[in-house]
C-alpha cells in the first residue's frame, strides 16, 4: 500500500509522513532503539566512542571491521573530502582479537560486530571471539580497497554463501554488507540469503579515484578508494530497490543518508532500517537530529504516525 493512502500527520509545509516512535523494534534479529544505525568504519574503533554514539541517539552501532590479524591500514592520505562526498582508503586497520576488551562496557547494548576474513574459516574464527558480546555480526564482504578481503569475496556469490553459512552456524544473526561494485547485486544478496543471512546491508562505498593535478598522483596513499556521502545516495537507493524486489530478508539501507527524508526515501525503496556513516562529518549529533524529524514528536499520541513496517518498499508500485 502506498503511504499516502494513510491518514498521516504531516508537516504543514511538506508532504512528509512521520513514523511512530519505535518500541520493541527488532530488525534482522537485532533489538534496535530506532531505525538509525551507526555504519561500520565510522567512530567504531573503541568502545567509548560506540557508547557515545548510542548516547547521541543511534538506535544501534556497528563496530569497525575486525579481522583475523591486527592491521595498521594503508599509508596516508586515507581520507579526502570533496563536494558531496568523501573518498577513503583506510585499509581495514583493526586490533583483531584485542577488540574484545573494547566491548566490556557495552554488554546488553545494540552492538553489531563487523568482521572480515579471507575465507569462511577466518570469518568464523573472528566471529567466535565475540559470541558473548555480539547482538549480530555484519560480514564485510564489500570493502573496495583491501587486497584479498572485502569486495574480492563479496563479488563472488559462492564465497559469500560459504562465508555467511560459516558464521550463521555459530547461532547469531548475520548481516551481510554488500558492495555496489558488481554487475548484479541481487545475485550476491540472494547468495547471502541462501547462506542463512538475517539481513542485507546495502551498500558499502563505491570504488572511486581522485588525482592531485599539481602532484600528478592519486590523492589517497592507496590510490583507489571508496566513495561515500550524498554523492552515492542514488546508487545506494537503486541497490536497495533492486534487492527488495529480489530478496525476502530485511534490507538495511546505507550510503549517503544524511536527513530524515533520505531515511523515508530508503524505506520506500525497501529498507527496514538504515545505517549512517559519513554524515557524522557534518555533525556528531546527526542521529538525534534525524530522530527529531523522522518520528512523531514526543507531545503527540505515540500511536499517531505510521508504522515504519508499512512504509518499507512502498515505492514498488
Amino acid at each position: 500500500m502506498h503511504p499516502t493512502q494513510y491518514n498521516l500527520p504531516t508537516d504543514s509545509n511538506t508532504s512528509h509522513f512521520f513514523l511512530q516512535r519505535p518500541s520493541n523494534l527488532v530488525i534482522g534479529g537485532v533489538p534496535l532503539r530506532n531505525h538509525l544505525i551507526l555504519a561500520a568504519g565510522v567512530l567504531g574503533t573503541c568502545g567509548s566512542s560506540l557508547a557515545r554514539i548510542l548516547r547521541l541517539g543511534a538506535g544501534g552501532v556497528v563496530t569497525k571491521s575486525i579481522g583475523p590479524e591486527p592491521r595498521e591500514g594503508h599509508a596516508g592520505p586515507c581520507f579526502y573530502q570533496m563536494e558531496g562526498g568523501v573518498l577513503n582508503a583506510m585499509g581495514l586497520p583493526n586490533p583483531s582479537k584485542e577488540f574484545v576488551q573494547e566491548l566490556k562496557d557495552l554488554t546488553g547494548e545494540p552492538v553489531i560486530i563487523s568482521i572480515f576474513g579471507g575465507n569462511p574459516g577466518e570469518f568464523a574464527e573472528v566471529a567466535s571471539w565475540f559470541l558473548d558480546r555480539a547482538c549480530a555480526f555484519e560480514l564485510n564482504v564489500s570493502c573496495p580497497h583491501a587486497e584479498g578481503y572485502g569486495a574480492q569475496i563479496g563479488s563472488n556469490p559462492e564465497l559469500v554463501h560459504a562465508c555467511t553459512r560459516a558464521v550463521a552456524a555459530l547461532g547469531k544473526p548475520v548481516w551481510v554488507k554488500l558492495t555496489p561494485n558488481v554487475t548484479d547485486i541481487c545475485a550476491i544478496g540472494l547468495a547471502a540469503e541462501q547462506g542463512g543471512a538475517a539481513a542485507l546491508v546495502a551498500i558499502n562505498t563505491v570504488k572511486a579515484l581522485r588525482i592531485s593535478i599539481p602532484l600528478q598522483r592519486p590523492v589517497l596513499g592507496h590510490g583507489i578508494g571508496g566513495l561515500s556521502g550524498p554523492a552515492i545516495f542514488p546508487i545506494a537507493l537503486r541497490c536497495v530497490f533492486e534487492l527488495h524486489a529480489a530478496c525476502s530478508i530485511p534490507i538495511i539501507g546505507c550510503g549517503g543518508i544524511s536527513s530524515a527524508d533520505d531515511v523515508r526515501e530508503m524505506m520506500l525503496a525497501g529498507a527496514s532500517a538504515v545505517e549512517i556513516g559519513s554524515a557524522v562529518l557534518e555533525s556528531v549529533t546527526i542521529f538525534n537530529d534525524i530522530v527529531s524529524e523522522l518520528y512523531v514528536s514526543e507531545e503527540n499520541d505515540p500511536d499517531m504516525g505510521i508504522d515504519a513496517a508499512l512504509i518499507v518498499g512502498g515505492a514498488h508500485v
Partner: protein
Amino acid sequence: MSKLLSDIVTIQEVKQETPSVTTLIFNHRYAAKPGQFVMVWIPGIDEVPMALSAPDAISVQAIGDATMALSSMKVGEKIGIRGPFGNGFSLAKRVLCVGGGVGLAPLRMIASNCDEALYLIGGRDQSELLYLNELMSNPAVTIKAATDNGTYGHHGFVTELIALSDPDSFDAICVCGPEMMMKNAYLAFEACGVVNRVQFSIHRYMKCGAGVCGSCCMDPHGYRVCTDGPVFYAYELGDEFGEYHRDAAGRRVKG
C-alpha cells in the same frame, strides 16, 4: 560536506629552530586559531597531523617516517595540507603557557593573540628550548625555562615551575608537550587548585582528521581528538590521559 579542504602548498623557507626541530614555512596562510592543526601529506610517504606553529608554518621533530621526510624537505618542494581542523585554545588577556619540546609549536601563536603571556618552556638542554629567542624578543611575553641538564634556567622539569608562577592569576592556562609531562602539569595544577580551567592539547594517531574514522577517539568519553579537541579542559580527560593511547591498528599502547 561542501567545503573543499585540501591544498597543495610549496615550501618557501626552512628554518632549523633547534638541533631536533625544523620549521617549514609555506606559500599559503591559514586563518587558524592557536592550537588548531592540519593534516600534512608528504607525497609517497604518509599523511600526519601537525599543529600550525604560524598561519603559514609547521614545526617538525623527526620521530617517524613522515616527520623524518618532512624534516629533510627543501625550499620549493610541495606538500599537501588539509584543514585547519580542531577547536584550538580558548584565549583571554593574560595567558600562562606550559610547553615541553616540540609541544611549544601549538602554543607559539598564543604570544601574538593575547595581551600578556608567561611561557614556561622546557627542553633537554639549552639548544632544545624551542622559540626561545623569538619569544624573548616579544615585549608581551615573559619566559621561565627549565632544562633536563641545567644548561639554562631551572635544572629539572618545566612542570616544577608551575607552583612558583601563581597560576591562579592567569585568565587562561594552556599546556602542550609529551603526555607524561602534561600529566605532571595536571598534577601540579591540581595541587594549585586550578586544574579544571587548564587546557591540554592532546596528540593521538589520526587517519581522517575530520571526525569520521574514530582512530583518535579517547576514553572514557569517546571524544574525537581531531574534532572535539585537540584541546581539552582537564575535566574532559579521564583514565586514558597519561596512561595509554591507541596505535594505527587501534591497539592500546602504554604511555
